Every structure is written in structure tokens, then in C-alpha cells.
């Protein structure tokens, strides 16, 4: 733990209204200011009690507080260090350990995830039974979408028209397995905007899931860096907010290993929307007569500061109008593995978000993170209504560039 980072907090409370758990429970110790106070107590010598660990576990890591903080407190760094401390010092209940074991042995490995898609899907019929065994298993069953047809992406997609850049594409774990259509749309959009797209086969998981939960993600990071170095690309483009946020922090993660620190520093990562706006549009946009609501994924809006770019891209599509979702800065409750480990608050936040999305009256929800998409769709299903279709920014752009309907 870093006592210096803790001292940056002046206890002003500006973070409170942006914190999802404070919004839910109104308790100081479940606010960023309260959690920093708990960290301080621990640094000052108070042992890490189960109560303390509970409040850290309850943090979604959405980073809305980082956006709100006028004093520049690095809460992102603080909670990451704290989670690692919790994993070292706090002994979890056997059941909880087992669930965590399953998730971390499964999600960061696309091949295992693929093998298990069917059993999880079957499990959705046994949701009530699984919830009784453990709420996390129930949540897993509830979140899983219907199986998508597997798509094999080529190793390389050549630019259409004059060549403007060579980029790598991160395919991701959950994104690749549950939303393969997003990756194909991303590759097409990039190619139509004049990019050679390289998709290394051996890229693996970016490590976000582990990193954001206090586990060591360095081996994942190194593998990703090496894979894209071999691919010889200028920039790695990422279409999953959580992955992009983690990858932008590789240099900090590997700072203690000189050789890797240098390689990580040279590793250029951009979110898809960020990259496309920097590049500037050349491909023709066909009209889409649609009213969409844009959902700010926390790891895009708060962790990466990418808010204007996706909206700008959507506004560039003729005929399309955008509606804002009320309370857009409050997390939907997905937050990486949060909806698996903390199913109850996650469900409350999901219901809250689904209601706000519904209030917009939009035909389509645009979300740039697979976790959010799963979470909001599950919440709408739970409310017993026909979920409004959810598409990634890439899929909407892809439809406009091709002159087709959006396939969500």
C-alpha cells in the first residue's frame, strides 16, 4: 500500500454521489472516501478485518470517483494495490474460494470458455437450483447469452482503398466468445477506413480480469505485448473497454522489470472509438434511421476518459439520433467479475440502469463493453420485458458503412 497516494485525499466528499455503492446504501465505508479511510487505517496498523475486506470487495472499480475527484487521488491505483493486499491477507470462505477459482481458471482462457459455453447454457435452465448452491453460479447462468455462431477471424484483413495505418486487433475473451460479431464488425470498419488489420492468433487474455481483482496479471501482459510486437503493428486497437483500460496501464504494471517496462512503454493502445476519431473518417456513411441510447462503460468513460469520441462517431451517421441515459456516470453493475462475486448489489444496479435505458425510449442501446451488454440485457430480461437490442459502436458503424441494417 502506498501511504503517499492515500494522503492525496482531502476528504471533501465530491466522490460520494458518483459511487454506485454509496448511491445504493448511503454508508460512508462503502464510498470511495470511506474506503480510502479504511486503507489508511490499515496502513496505520489496523489489521485487515473481514468487515474491511467486505467493503473493498464491494467496490466495483468503476472509477467514477477518479473522474469526480478534484484533488487527483489515484483511487484506481489504490484499489488495485488494496485488492492485492486483500488476496494476500484475507482468508476467504471455502465456497467463495471455489467460485473465484472457477472464474479465474475459466474466463481469461478463450478455449476453456468455449468448451464450457454449452454446460453454462444448459445451466441457465437450472438457474434456481444453481442460485441455491451459490448465488454466483446463479448469476453466471443468468448472464450467459444464447450461443453465438463461432466466427474464425482471418490473420490479416487488408485495407480497402489507400492504406492509412497498420493496426493490431485484440479479440478479447468474453468479447470473442460471446460477441464474435463485434470483432468481425471492428475488423471490417477498420479495413474500410483504410487500415491493415492484423489479428495474431496467440494473443491470449489481456489480464484485465485478474488485474482488476487483485491477482497478478503480468504474465498475461507480457504475452500480449510479445504477440503484437511480432505482428509489427503501429497501434493495438481494442473494442472492449475493460481490456483497453488494463492495457493502457501495462507500463505501470511492468515498471519493476526494466526490459519489459521499456517494451510496455512502446506498446501503443487505443480504444476503437478513440482511434477512429484520431484517424478521421474517410469511408462513406449510409443513413441509419435509428434512435439510439449510448451507454458509457465505466472503463471507457472513467478509466480511459473516452466519452466524446463514440458520440462523435455516432453523430456522424446520417439519420441516427442519440439520446442520453440519465445517471450515465453510474455503473451498470457488471464491472468485470463483480456481477459474479457480488450478485446482489450488481442486480440492483443492473435494474436501475435498465430502467434508465428504458426511459430513453430508444430503439437500440449502444454499449462498448461486453460485460455491460450482458449485464443490461439480463436486467431487462429479469424485468420480464423484451430487452431492447444492444449493439457495439463498431456494429452500428459497420452497418452504416456497409449500408445494411444493424445486426445486434
Amino acid at each position, binding site marked *: 500500500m502506498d501511504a503517499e497516494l492515500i*494522503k*492525496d*485525499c*482531502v*476528504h*471533501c*466528499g*465530491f466522490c*460520494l*454521489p458518483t459511487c454506485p455503492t*454509496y448511491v445504493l*446504501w*448511503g*454508508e*460512508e*465505508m462503502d464510498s470511495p472516501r*470511506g474506503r480510502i*479511510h*479504511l486503507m489508511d*487505517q490499515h496502513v496505520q496498523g*489496523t489489521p485487515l*478485518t473481514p*468487515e*474491511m475486506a467486505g*467493503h473493498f470487495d464491494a467496490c466495483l472499480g468503476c472509477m467514477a470517483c477518479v473522474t469526480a*475527484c*478534484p*484533488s*487527483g487521488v489515484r483511487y484506481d491505483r489504490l484499489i488495485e494495490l488494496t485488492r492485492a493486499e486483500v488476496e494476500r491477507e484475507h482468508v476467504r470462505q471455502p465456497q467463495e474460494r471455489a467460485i473465484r477459482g472457477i472464474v479465474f481458471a475459466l474466463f481469461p482462457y478463450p478455449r476453456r470458455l468455449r468448451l464450457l459455453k454449452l454446460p453454462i447454457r444448459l445451466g441457465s435452465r437450472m438457474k434456481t437450483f444453481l442460485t441455491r448452491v451459490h448465488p454466483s453460479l446463479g448469476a453466471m447462468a443468468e448472464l450467459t447469452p444464447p450461443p453465438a455462431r463461432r466466427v474464425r477471424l482471418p490473420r490479416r484483413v487488408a485495407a480497402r482503398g489507400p492504406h492509412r495505418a497498420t493496426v493490431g486487433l485484440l479479440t478479447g475473451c468474453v468479447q470473442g466468445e460471446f460477441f464474435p460479431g463485434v470483432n468481425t464488425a471492428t475488423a471490417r470498419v477498420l479495413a474500410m477506413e483504410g487500415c491493415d488489420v492484423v489479428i495474431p492468433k496467440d494473443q491470449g487474455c489481456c489480464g484485465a480480469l485478474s488485474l482488476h481483482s487483485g491477482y497478478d496479471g503480468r504474465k498475461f501482459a507480457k504475452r500480449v505485448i510479445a504477440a503484437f510486437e511480432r505482428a509489427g503493428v503501429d497501434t493495438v486497437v481494442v473494442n472492449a473497454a475493460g481490456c483497453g483500460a488494463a492495457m493502457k496501464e501495462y507500463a505501470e504494471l511492468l515498471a519493476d522489470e526494466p526490459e519489459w517496462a521499456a517494451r510496455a512503454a512502446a506498446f501503443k493502445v487505443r480504444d476503437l472509438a478513440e482511434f477512429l476519431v484520431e484517424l478521421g473518417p474517410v469511408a462513406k456513411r449510409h443513413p441509419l434511421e435509428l434512435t439510439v441510447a449510448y451507454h458509457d462503460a465505466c472503463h471507457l468513460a472513467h478509466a480511459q476518459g473516452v466519452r466524446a469520441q463514440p458520440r462523435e462517431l455516432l453523430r456522424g451517421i446520417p439519420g441516427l439520433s442519440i439520446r442520453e441515459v440519465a445517471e450515465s456516470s453510474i455503473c451498470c453493475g457488471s464491472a468485470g467479475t463483480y456481477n459474479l462475486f457480488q450478485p446482489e448489489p450488481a442486480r440492483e444496479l443492473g435494474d436501475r440502469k435498465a430502467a434508465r435505458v428504458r426511459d430513453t425510449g430508444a430503439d437500440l442501446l449502444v454499449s462498448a463493453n461486453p460485460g455491460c451488454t450482458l449485464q443490461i440485457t439480463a436486467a431487462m430480461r429479469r424485468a420480464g420485458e423484451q430487452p431492447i437490442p444492444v449493439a457495439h459502436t463498431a456494429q452500428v458503424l459497420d452497418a452504416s458503412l456497409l449500408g445494411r441494417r444493424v445486426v445486434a
Partner: protein
Amino acid sequence: MIATLAQRLKAVLPDQAVITDPVRLRTYECDGLTYHRATPGVVVLPESAEEIAAVVRLCQEFQVPFVARGSGTGLSGGALPRSDGVLIVTSRMRRILDIDLPNRRAVVEPGVTNLAITEAVRDAGYYYAPDPSSQQICSIGGNVAENSGGAHCLKYGFTVNHVLALELVTPDGDIVELTELDDGYDLLGAFIGSEGTLGIATKITVRLSRAPETVTTLLAAFATIEGGGTAVSSIIGAGIVPAAIEMMDALAIEAAEAAVRCEYPAGAGAVLIVELDGPTAEVARQFAAVERICREAGSFEIRVAASAEERAAIWRGRKSAFAAVGRISPAYIVQDGVVPRTALPEVLAGIDRLQEEFGIRVANVFHAGDGNLHPLVLFDDAEPGQGERAETVSGRILDLCIEHGGSITGEHGVGVDKSRYMPRMFTDDDLATMQLVRCAFDPGYLSNPGKIFPTPRLCGEVPRVRKGPHPHEAELF
């Protein structure tokens, strides 16, 4: 005794609304002023007036002090807990109960944030006028306790001018209502700003104001703070009452720049933010006058917000200034004093002298229109002696304010932090009279004791039937 009380509290509140775990309790040890800390004996999170009344009655039964807290953003330690008492936190009472646009009023629970009221009625063309810089998080209950102001109180007044009625729990545990229509003493006026010493507000009826037809915001940069000061006096002297006139000095600008990249004009020794609102024709006329006055006073750059976003950008620097100072200094004290507008230049020069004498930096942010200063006294708590010197400078600034006919607080309240300065401003008779009012509400001296007054007056001195031992007697045994 606290343990027994906690058990009894669990009988009147849900289990999870009573906090007794020591680690959790400590997160409530201070409010926005971290200089004073005390771990509360027990924390309760009630959800209704009835629950608060039940808690207060138990406190009376056990003769244990209680302190109310909203969002914990106060800057005078008004919500500093008692380790031998109960901290009553209203953060779960955040429902807007009624919005009555035809009568321009809303009824809200005390934990509702100041900004939430405006957000609920903005689309209909209304807003809630008082706007403390912490408006996105400070609670309306806390605003009532502190009679909070904000940048726009120059034209629109403080919380007391915008609260029409209150439901409150008295220190005896009764639920009563006070309204502006009540006959007799202005009890509503007495309660607002009483810093939690007369009871706890549980339902607040606020006035909703019509959003002005036009709002114009101007940012004028001056080479020196004197130039800005001259402009302020001339604007008010010309008979113009802007919605707000705010000034920041070079150090405050530097902090805001580091925090929110507000991009105020480079090289400015001071910036003035002037906001005019009202009917379009009136604003246009006043705006021309303000612009001319600023230029005549030596402003080298004037920016006018052309959109709501640009206005927000100008205000962002000002509203984040307090916390932003955390970027340029490891620790700081936020001071709050008032001086007559005409004395501004002299007082600022006095603050400059104090900086030199003690080797302590002071950043100045203030509501220049009504002479409400917020000097931020910067120090490094890792350096021995600096904290004490900063304390001295901070106190001397208040002396300056009093010498020039001002006051020790404009809007942050007295709390625990400034109670010791009260005798500098008031005579013994003044203070005794104030305490008599307090005793009438809280004869047992249990409602937020230790705040406002430097030494408690013993209510037993007022002729009345006394319950329990005389306080002196209690000390003997």
C-alpha cells in the same frame, strides 16, 4: 453504557442501520474538516423522522449526546462526532417527497443533495437557488444546519431565505413543524443556522426559483488583485447586483489549473467571475457596464461564456478550488471570514504581510460581492512546526476580519473549529443570551454539544425543574 444503548437502538432500528464495528465507526471520525477527529460511540442510519425521534428519545433516556451528520462535507467540524455519543447520519433519507410547481416549492428529506433538487426541476424551468461549491454532494439538512450560502447568495440570499417550512425532531424527541407563517417568535429563522444544536431537521420545504431568462458569465483577468478589487467596488457602486462576483488570486488559479485545467488567462494575478442574470434586456445593459468597469479597472483579458458548457468551464475552476489546492500543497486550512467590501484591499494586504511574517503561503478565493473571504492556508504537515504556524496565520486572518468590522464566518459555520473565536466577536452578555435560546430548545445540553459556544452554559441556571444530577454534582461523583 454505549453498548447497552446500541442494543436498545437495534430494537428501534433495523440491525444494519446501527454501526458498532470499530473499523467502520472510524470512517465517520471527521467531516470535511479533517483537523478535528473523534470516533463516534455508535452510528445510526435512520430512514424516517420517527426513527430519528426514537433514537433521540433513547439518547435522552441514557443522557448521551447526539450529533447529526448529512454528507459529511462541512468545513467547521459541525458534524464532529462524540466518542461518548450517537452520530445520527441522514444519508439514507434522500427522497424528494413532493414537487409543487404551481406553488414553487418542494418537500425533501434531509439527506437529499442540494443539486438533486435543481436536477429534479430543471427541465420545468426552475432551480433551487443557494449553491455551495459542494452542491453536488452536500445535503440539504446540512445546509439548513449551517445556513449555507454559495456563490449566488449575493443576489439571492442564503438557505434561510429559501426554506419555507421544516419538520424537525426536537432534542426531547418530539416531531414538530415550523413554518414561516407561524405566529410569534421566528422559530424557523432561529433553527436555520443553529448547527444542529436545536434539533434535527427531518423534512424540508424549499422555495423553487424560476430559472432566469438570460444568464451571462464573464471572466475578467487582472494583473493584480487590487485591480480586481477596484472592479468589484465599482460594479456594486454602479448599482448593479450581479448573481455572483467571485475572485481568485494567482495561487488559487494555479491550483485550479492543476486540478481541472480551467485554462484561465495566463499571467493573471487575479481573475474575477461575474455572472449576471434576469430579463434579457436588463442583463444586456448591465453586461455592457460591467465590461466597461472591468476594462477601466485594468482587466487585460475578458472572456464571455457563449454556451452553458463554456459557463460550466468557467465555474469549474472556481467550484473545485478548495479541493484543488490539494494538488499544490500537502495540507491546508480553509478559512471563512467576512469583511466589509470597502475593507477588502486592506485585509488582503494584511494577509500578504502575514504570509511573509510566518513563511506560509495563502491562496485566496472569495465571494467578492459580499466580502466573504476563503483564504486557503497552505502547509506541509510533514514539516515540524508548519501546522502550528498555519493555525496561527489562519487565526490572525480572523482577527483582521474582526478588526475591520467583519465576522469570523460567512457560511461555513462556527462548529468546533471557531468556537474559540466567538469571544473575540461577541461580549459575554451576547454569548449568554444566545445560550439561553439554546437552553430553551435543549435543556439537557445533548444536541451537538461542544459546538458554537466556547464554554457550555449550564442550563440549570435557568429556573426550571431539573432532571438528574446537577452537572457540577455529576462531576463530583
